[in-house]
């Protein structure tokens, strides 16, 4: 099977100098074929030590497990636990940012600051905090306390969900009994109700899973809000995307994973003259070149215009260019295989988080109280590794596309305000009503080895754009569109239908871009999906309708992770028709 539709990735896969023994995700996928049918259908259960149990999906063998659980119960338990796994990831991510926020307010993390007071106040007001005449630090403390209370035993509906969703959705959630009162408590509840001998009613289990998905939405929203407050709310920025951003004459350092806490600091120190001089002394005439991979890449692209090298599925391929001197990782979507691939090259893989180590990688513990020094030490590792580079193993592809990113909800509304300052949403709503924009589709999620990389994204978006559907993108979906050149003014002219082109041109020119807005708006990393919800909620509230009444849909056509299952599920709770490809562990249920 074709491995990737990305020309740069394909070039490196075909021409790399890592040797024949080098294996990538595509080789390992092939070696796993055929995959276990019971696992594919989600009809095996390992939740107790009497198992494993399997249900015969063909109806001849056992139709229930040892405890009596049917396929429906087992599938529901598996789905609920996948959502809990995703929610735990976003909870961990958000809580990490909150803990650093706490250190900042206590004066224990001097390298960080509140960079966006406007966002701080906006989130505080939305959360019911009085801001009038109060010092920023007081508002920040109260907001942080509120944020931290969401994770524990709050005992009342979560603020970040209740204050950001429209009344219609809150009513639906209340009626279904899926209003979470604790992020981590809800994750624990799913683990409890899906353990041996607790919840056996598949519908009831799924309602618990929906509640957990709302907790996931809450955690994502907190992560985005706090990151914006600490590092700035993204505004449109022009950069480049694809492996062609790697440079032979520079020290190339890739930031991979999901969190801005370390990556933002590295992005800052990489412009320090002293470090650039050290790189040049080491022989890198073009100094330092920091690039992003996966969603850490999206975080630093959105806020600093750091070029995006590649996405999650092709993370190994970045190493296979032979010019990546260090790959610095935090957490989530980091394949343990990168340490093995790096053995064929000079690249140093550096893990930084206490909860995410990897055999074969070097661990440099990241300490937020001493963030800049840690970041400098990591950059120096990259400079040191540059001197070990083997020129015979260099294989840099030409391809890189221009990418306009940085479309936070605030940035989109800001651009619309250039058309109508008094009523920014009016141009968007008017054009939807007039049929110039037939709808909005949010593309989110990962890249999967199960289809040629980006194939689903690219084919679907071409058809939707031609049908005048406005596209929002996050996570590795946005990476796909950035790498394939969908985030430029030219792409609007090439792919968008007449109505959509006219709208994007009017907004782009009013916003001073000198051309249309890109047809695909990069809204951030995968944790940033609530940004898209915020825009939809603003429209719904203005029209006085529920989210489910808007022509807004969501798709994760190349999904991989449990996080994608959680996000896809809260998109359903949000009332959006949702397409989550590849979650097939529900195929053998009876309903």
């Amino acid at each position, binding site marked *: 099977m074709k491995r990737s539709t990305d020309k740069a990735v394909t070039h490196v896969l075909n021409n790399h100098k890592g040797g024949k023994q080098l294996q990538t995700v595509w080789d390992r996928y092939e070696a796993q074929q*055929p995959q*276990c*049918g*019971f696992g*594919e*259908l989600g009809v095996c259960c390992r939740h107790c030590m009497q198992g494993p149990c*399997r249900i015969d*999906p*063909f*109806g*001849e063998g056992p139709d229930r497990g040892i405890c009596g659980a049917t396929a429906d119960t087992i599938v529901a338990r598996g789905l609920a636990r996948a959502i809990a796994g995703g929610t735990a990831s976003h909870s961990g991510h958000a809580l990490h940012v909150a803990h650093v926020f706490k250190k900042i307010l206590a004066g224990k993390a001097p390298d960080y600051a509140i960079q966006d007071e406007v966002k701080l106040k906006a989130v505080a007001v939305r959360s019911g905090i009085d801001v009038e005449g109060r010092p920023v630090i007081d508002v920040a403390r109260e907001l942080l306390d509120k944020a931290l209370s969401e994770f524990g035993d709050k005992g009342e509906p979560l603020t970040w969900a209740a204050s950001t969703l429209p009344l219609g959705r809150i009513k639906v959630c209340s009626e279904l009994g899926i209003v979470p009162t604790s992020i981590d408590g809800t994750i624990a509840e799913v683990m409890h109700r899906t353990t041996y001998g607790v919840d056996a009613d598949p519908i009831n289990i799924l309602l618990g899973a929906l509640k957990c998905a709302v907790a996931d939405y809450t955690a994502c929203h907190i992560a985005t809000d706090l990151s914006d407050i600490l590092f700035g709310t993204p505004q449109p920025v022009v950069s480049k995307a694809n492996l062609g951003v790697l440079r032979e004459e520079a020290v190339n350092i890739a930031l991979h994973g999901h969190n801005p806490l370390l990556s933002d600091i590295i992005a800052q120190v990489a412009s320090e003259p002293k470090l650039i001089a050290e790189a040049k002394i080491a022989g890198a005439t073009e100094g330092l070149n920091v690039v992003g991979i996966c969603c850490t890449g999206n975080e630093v692209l959105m806020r600093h215009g750091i070029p995006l090298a590649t996405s999650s599925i092709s993370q190994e391929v970045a190493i296979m260019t032979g010019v990546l001197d260090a790959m610095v990782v935090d957490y989530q979507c980091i394949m343990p295989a990168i340490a093995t691939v790096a053995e064929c090259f000079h690249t140093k893989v550096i893990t930084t988080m206490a909860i995410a180590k990897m055999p074969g990688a070097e661990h440099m513990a990241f300490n937020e109280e001493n963030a800049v020094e840690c970041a400098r030490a990591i950059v120096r590792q990259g400079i040191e590794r540059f001197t070990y580079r083997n020129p015979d193993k260099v294989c840099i592809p030409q391809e890189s596309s221009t990418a306009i990113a940085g479309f936070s909800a605030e940035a989109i509304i800001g651009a619309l305000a250039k058309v109508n300052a008094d009523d920014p949403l009016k141009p968007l709503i008017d054009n939807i009503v007039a049929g110039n924009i037939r709808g909005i589709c949010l593309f989110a999620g990962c890249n999967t080895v199960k289809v040629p990389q980006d194939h689903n994204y690219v084919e679907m978006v071409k058809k939707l754009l031609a049908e005048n559907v406005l596209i929002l993108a996050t996570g590795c979906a946005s990476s796909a569109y950035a790498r394939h050149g969908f985030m430029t003014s030219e792409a609007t002219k090439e792919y968008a239908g007449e109505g959509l082109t006219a709208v994007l041109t009017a907004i782009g020119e009013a916003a001073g871009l000198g051309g249309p807005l890109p047809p695909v708006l990069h809204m951030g990393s995968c944790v940033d999906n609530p940004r898209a919800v915020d825009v939809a909620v603003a429209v719904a509230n203005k029209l006085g309708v529920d989210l489910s009444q808007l022509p807004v849909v969501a798709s994760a056509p190349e999904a991989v992770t449990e996080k994608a299952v959680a996000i896809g599920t809260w998109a359903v709770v949000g009332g959006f028709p949702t397409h989550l490809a590849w979650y*097939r562990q529900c*195929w*053998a249920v009876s309903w």
Partner: protein
Amino acid sequence: MQFLYAQTDRCLGCRSCEIACRIEHSEEKNLFSAVSQIHPPKKRLFVEQQGDRKEPVLCHHCDDSPCMAACITGSLYRDERGVIRRRDERCIGCWSCIMACPFGVVARDANLHLAVKCDRCPDREIPACVASCPTKALRLVDADMLSEERRQEYMLREEK
């Protein structure tokens, strides 16, 4: 002469071979459509267990095959590969073959009223069960090669 050989100490009892067999004998040869068929496809081999020993029990396509000898309508025949197969239109569902098979690997398709047995996947070079086995417990081997392999194992045995 090639036959399917199960190296029983490698079998984990995962039943991947059974699923692969059903998929191969389904309408679209795809797991997700196979489970949705009105009459689910039947398996032609059977993972059984006695004590701790797990083993896929499967058709040996015997040279002196009792099933074929018992088939009163001539539905069962031997193809050019030496594989015992079924002519659908001749099977009357008398189940003589089931009674005759010493391994118990002929089964009954109650929906189609046909005797069901291994056809060694005529559309494939390597049978689906063999291709699916994650531990390589199932192999397609040549009879002469296997006896050679056995002699080597015998020579390498530990003296007690």
